[in-house]
């Protein structure tokens, strides 16, 4: 018991001054694998449907006259003398890169 106490105190004292009996270990070398050779990939374009799928950029407005507007809003100059009547945009039609229609519908400014 006394010997064990003495040995434990010695071990703690050595560790405090940076001396230790621990031996560091290292991981083993990894397993070697073969390189994948360079090659060309190919994928078929999915067929678009009217009811589904995403919007393909870019979106292009093809007909300006189909724009729709909210009722006009009048802005007044600070001096009260000049008014500027503007119709806020309500809806704009686009075609995406696939020729599919897309609409932007804006809220009425309040």
């Amino acid at each position, binding site marked *: 018991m006394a010997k064990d106490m003495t040995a434990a105190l010695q071990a703690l004292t050595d560790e405090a001054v940076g001396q230790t009996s621990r031996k560091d270990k290292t991981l083993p070398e990894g397993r070697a694998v073969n390189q994948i050779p360079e090659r060309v990939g190919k994928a078929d374009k999915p067929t678009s449907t009217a009811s589904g799928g995403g919007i393909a950029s870019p979106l292009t407005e093809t007909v300006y006259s189909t724009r729709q507007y909210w009722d*006009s*809003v009048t*802005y*007044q*100059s*600070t*001096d*009260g*003398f*000049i*008014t*500027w*009547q*503007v119709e*806020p*945009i309500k809806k704009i039609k686009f075609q995406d890169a696939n020729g599919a229609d897309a609409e932007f519908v804006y809220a009425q*400014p*309040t």
Partner: protein
Amino acid sequence: MKAPFGFGKLGIFGQPYHGLWKGGVITLPNGATKACPAPANGGVVLIRHPGQAEVVRSPAEQAADAAAGFEWRNYALISGGYYGGVGPFYSNIPSAHVIFIDGAGVRWLMKLTTSSSYVNYMTVSIKRIAHIDGTVSSWSSEINVPIDARFVASVHSVAIPLITISQNTTGREFVLGGVVNGGYANGLLKVGVSGTVDLGASSFGLTFSNEALEWQDRLNYESVGTESVSGTCVNVITRHHLQRANPSHVYTGVEYIEVQTYTDGVLDTNGPPVATGAYDWIDVSLEYSRSTSKTKTFAGGYRAKRAIWAAYVDDVLKVYTLEYSDISSGSLDASWWSTGADPAGYWIFSGMQERHKHLITKIGDQVVWDQHFSSSQYIEQQVSFGTYGLQFPPTSMAGYTVDNTSTLSYKASLEDIISSGSIDTTVGSVTTWTAKYLLPIKPNGQRWASPIMVLCTRTKTSTDPTNPTYVSHSVWAPSGINVATSTAIANLFATWHPVLNQLHVDTENVCWF
């Protein structure tokens, strides 16, 4: 809160460049300059959209505005006698223009035209302005609006073109006129307009009213005469009669005193002594005494007045006038008084008479200058009646009050008024007439919305009466503020800021923006 605008929000929308225009640029509050086309003159028209809110800027925006020299106002100035493509409002065409804000707050340019013949109406058309909606506004059809017939001769086509003398901040009230006599108004027509424009309705849905404030042929020369007499005039004649015996004519020592008391001409007497066969009477002496409180006070003479211009200070109309008066007045004692029942009675007055001659220039009720000449003299008047009649026939012979002011059948021109109000001095054979009054700062054709006038002294001599000389004293704005100057009127330019109430006087063209 800023309004949504497109995909963003509206920051601020307006005209931020304000200051004094001179030499082609507006000097901004931060000292920087902004190039601006030359105004036609210093005339500035204030337009206030009813209920327009004050501009609110955040501290950061205020700092940015100050750095940029921007000033955001909640009122508009139409500066320099132009409105866009309309060109100079003073242009020598027989049309006047007014910027009118209707009951719905919509801005219109109103064109008013007089006919080349004398008709009791003006032709009115309107055009929407100051509204950006992608369309081009054009003049409406024309309507005829009846006008005060007295004003008609004051403007006549190209010879005396109709111009806008001044308008209030909404154009719902304005003054039209013709300009002659070196820039004075030949007549003034105040017009009121109310309602909201409906181009399809009769009279565009508007109600017009008008009233001539001055006109070319107004009989403006008046005779003034007020006279009143009060109190009692008592004259006492005491006659001493001595008795004589007949036929010796020896005085008996008996004396008879006859007392004649005339109270306002009415005799009360104990009568003369009565002669008998034994005695007669001889009138040996006479004493006269007077005890009178009867006094005549009077004021009489002539006066004339003409309105020469008009301007609005905010929405208060100020009419400029030249007034002449020459009134003599006094308080005279009555030393003799007949009853009026006398076949050829008379009254005798005496005392000091004061004469006061004025030539007064006013802007509204404010007296800009009162040129005053006075003199006094002792006078005696004998007013005869019966044979010759009375100048002011009284209703009561004991005392009376007469107010005999009347308009004479004479139109006093401005020159009549100025000449009559002049102060004359004669040295040797040369007479000099001086008169100090307001003159228009610019002659015909340059007066639209330019209410500024110059207080000058005109000196005219009998040796060269057709070439008077003028000396400037001060430049006046309709608000009553003025700037002293000795610059000859021909070289003077000035502009008045109707909100800041600042008057700038210069020797070259200037205009507030």
